[in-house]
């Protein structure tokens, strides 16, 4: 199939940036979206132009590196699918496709479609862990974990930190990301000792990093490639209120 691509090109963080139109032809429906961009980039290099910069790595939907807004939706039209797992069979001949970077105050553009997501690491640094130095652990079976808790913790732990939630949120909030970690660790017995400090510190770090506040719109969960549920934010709110009350 033949497609028209309109891609955000921005040379540097200082550059204003603009949409640039490219034609690509002979796209196979079995190609992944990124393979289609590879074909474009190979051509641009041979024409002496700079290829389109985009983040990608594992190309199997788990590293969280790929990050494109496709036709206005983070990771494109297919639900529960990262950009790298999106295949061209979901588009048709003659389509025009808009490709943009994540746009959020906390994720400044570095170049073209590449953004800086180190704000997520800052949130984890504030408390997204259980303090268990190497060598200090008791036998793994010393604390049984009820299966429903373990399963719900796993579901939240599946977050790949791609940032689609932030890109989708009208407020540019990173609350789904933060809540996923709060939920994962807060559901496990091992996570209890730091549960209250964790939620206060992580939310403070979230706010400091320039993310917007959460107003329960739900765009985040709708665009999350891992389907992290909105109930995690409810859980975060509950933990936060409890902890904040204690502290005050």
């Amino acid at each position, binding site marked *: 199939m033949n497609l028209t691509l309109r891609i955000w090109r921005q040379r540097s963080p200082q550059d204003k940036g603009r949409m640039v139109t490219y034609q690509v032809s002979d796209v196979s429906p079995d190609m992944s979206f990124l393979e289609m961009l590879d074909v474009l980039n190979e051509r641009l290099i041979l024409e002496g*132009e700079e290829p389109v910069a985009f983040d990608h790595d594992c190309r*199997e939907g788990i590293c969280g590196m790929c990050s494109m807004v496709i036709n206005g939706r983070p990771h494109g039209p297919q639900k*529960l699918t990262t950009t790298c797992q999106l295949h061209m069979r979901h588009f048709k001949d003659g389509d025009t496709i808009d490709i943009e970077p994540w746009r959020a105050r906390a994720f400044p553009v570095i170049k073209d479609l*590449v953004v*800086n997501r180190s704000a997520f*690491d800052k949130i984890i640094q504030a408390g997204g*862990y259980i303090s268990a130095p190497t060598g200090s*652990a008791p036998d793994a079976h010393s604390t049984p974990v009820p299966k429903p808790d*373990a399963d719900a913790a796993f579901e939240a732990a599946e977050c790949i930190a791609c940032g689609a939630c932030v890109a989708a949120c009208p407020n540019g909030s990173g609350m789904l990301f933060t809540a996923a970690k709060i939920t994962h660790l807060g559901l496990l017995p091992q996570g209890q000792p730091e549960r209250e400090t964790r939620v206060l510190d992580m939310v403070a770090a979230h706010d400091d990093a320039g993310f917007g506040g959460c107003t329960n719109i739900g765009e985040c969960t709708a665009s999350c490639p891992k389907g992290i549920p909105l109930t995690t934010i409810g859980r975060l709110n509950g933990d936060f209120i409890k902890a904040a009350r204690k502290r005050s």
Partner: protein
Amino acid sequence: MLDNQTGDNQMGNDQMGNDQMGNDQMGNDPMGNDQIGNYIVGEPIAETKAPDGPIETRWERRRFSGKLVNPANKRKMTVIVVGTGLAGASAGATLAELGYHVKSYCYQDSPRRAHSIAAQGGINAAKNYRNDGDSVYRLFYDTVKGGDFRSRESNVYRLAEVSVNIIDQAVAQGVPFAREYGGLLDTRSFGGTQVSRTFYARGQTGQQLLLGAYQALERQIAAGNVEMNARHEMLELIIVDGRARGIVVRDLVTGEITTEFADAVVLASGGYGNVFFLSTNAKGCNVTASWRAHRKGALFANPCYTQIHPTCIPQSGDHQSKLTLMSESLRNDGRVWVPKKAGDKRAPGDIPEDERDYYLERIYPSFGNLVPRDIASRAAKNVCDEGRGVGPGGLGVYLDFADAIKRLGRPAVEAKYGNLFDMYQRITGEDPYEVPMRIYPAVHYTMGGLWVDYDLQSTIPGLFVIGEANFSDHGANRLGASALMQGLADGYFVLPNTINEYLAAGPFPKVDGQHPAAVEARTQVEDRLQRLLSINGDRTVDSFHRELGHIMWEYCGMERTDAGLRKAIELIRGLREEYWRRVKVSGAGEGLNQALERAGRVADFLELAELMCIDALHRTESCGGHFRAESQTPDGEAQRDDENFSYVAAWEFTGAGQPPVLHKEDLNFEYVHPTQRSYK
């Protein structure tokens, strides 16, 4: 036997670590020495750090005999860790917890994205929670046998021993392993074993273990003990007075080249499977950190040992940029088959039961679909070579869940493998609940890597190598769910104990960017980048990489022959020469330039590829993942030659296109007697 041997070591061990990297060594051999596959036999090399005596107490005795560093001195010392996968992140966090200052580097935008994240199936540990006859000794035995008797007993025993601590550590960090209704940990079985010792977190075990290590690392970053440098790539090693003292890195965002120093350098930079272009590795995985260290004198061991994983999604066309693994755990419940008749084009559902060949169950009745990876891969190749392959190009076999769905019910299959089935459907557009999956082998892991001793130190003092980047534990074939085990064993428990012995002699004299060795290394990096940018040819980096991949898959893949390997070496040399003449890299050295990043990596793959072929050519036996067509049993299984090849091949670099020097480390088996591996 060693038909290419040209006599004694002409280079001499004294030259190790003193290699000068001149531009003249980058292209084809300027001396016209094009003897294909030539190499020089050098002095043998020996592992001397492992104590002898009872294997059960070797690790304990090594920890006791090794020197310690007092806490006040630890604070004065810095360790560089390159890579933040399971090995690098766990090592970085643990070294920082011990009190060392750590400088950590990764090319991704966050340490959490290292490719360990993609490991699916699980992690082995000799917990024997199942009471099914497992033990540390059995895990040790299975791993030595699975590696086809080409690994070191001491190292493997230690790995099995610390495996139990890894599970404890991960659970304490909040890794959400699968659990049973009673709240205890669930396990499953994996290829090459008959016990159930694999702990897992659905199909995302690597992700969950890596996040555990990443979170521990972030905790140390917050505490100021780790300086994290994401989007930085190591491009050279700096050696001062014979010790690894630093690295040259490029900031991938600004393009700035800097020199970084420490008292020791740890490489945790992963494997080199991307030399095949198509592999299950992430696109950014590369050999550059290891290869730069190799060029500076670190020996490279067993480069030809690559693992071809049997269950990957087949290639769909020439545009393919990578291959996707379907976890080996699927072989627990899925049945592998092809039509009995060659060229059978019927849909799988139309082929009656008695016209299907469940070939793994037929040939290997006792292990069935759970034979080790090398055996399953080659069996798939054989049936496809017979014209019985399925799907486009006949390069695929069925992995069928119909029986499992009938036996367990769809919900149970969904709970176990749901995310894998979803992934398969997203990529192929086919529903594996309705039609059998199609799978085909793909390059997945490299057992070879930089040579290390029992302390995980390379032949360059102060340079330690952990995880997939070293060669130490898997021999010629790695068992499933053992990569995660090894990465975390090295990072959490082994290196943080063994590195003290080396650092007890530190802190070493301060070095800065003005030191001649630093200036030289930095200049080499700058010159090389400039050279890549200035060629301005007419072929892209990817086109070279694809061509290299074709050569390697064809001649150094699942089956290797003398003639094929010689041809490959010739082709690789030609391609390398062409690369430095015709490659086109657009853009500049300043700022983010992904084409330039790839160009440097492919240049190193073009050198590594030749060494892999030389190693494969010299090892005329078959063992594990290395199958030489000339060396097979009457029924087509790998035929080892223990009399001549029971050694580790550790190669010394002498220049691109120059004959490398082979240093042999003899392998001695005191506990597990080498036999022909049988899974029948």
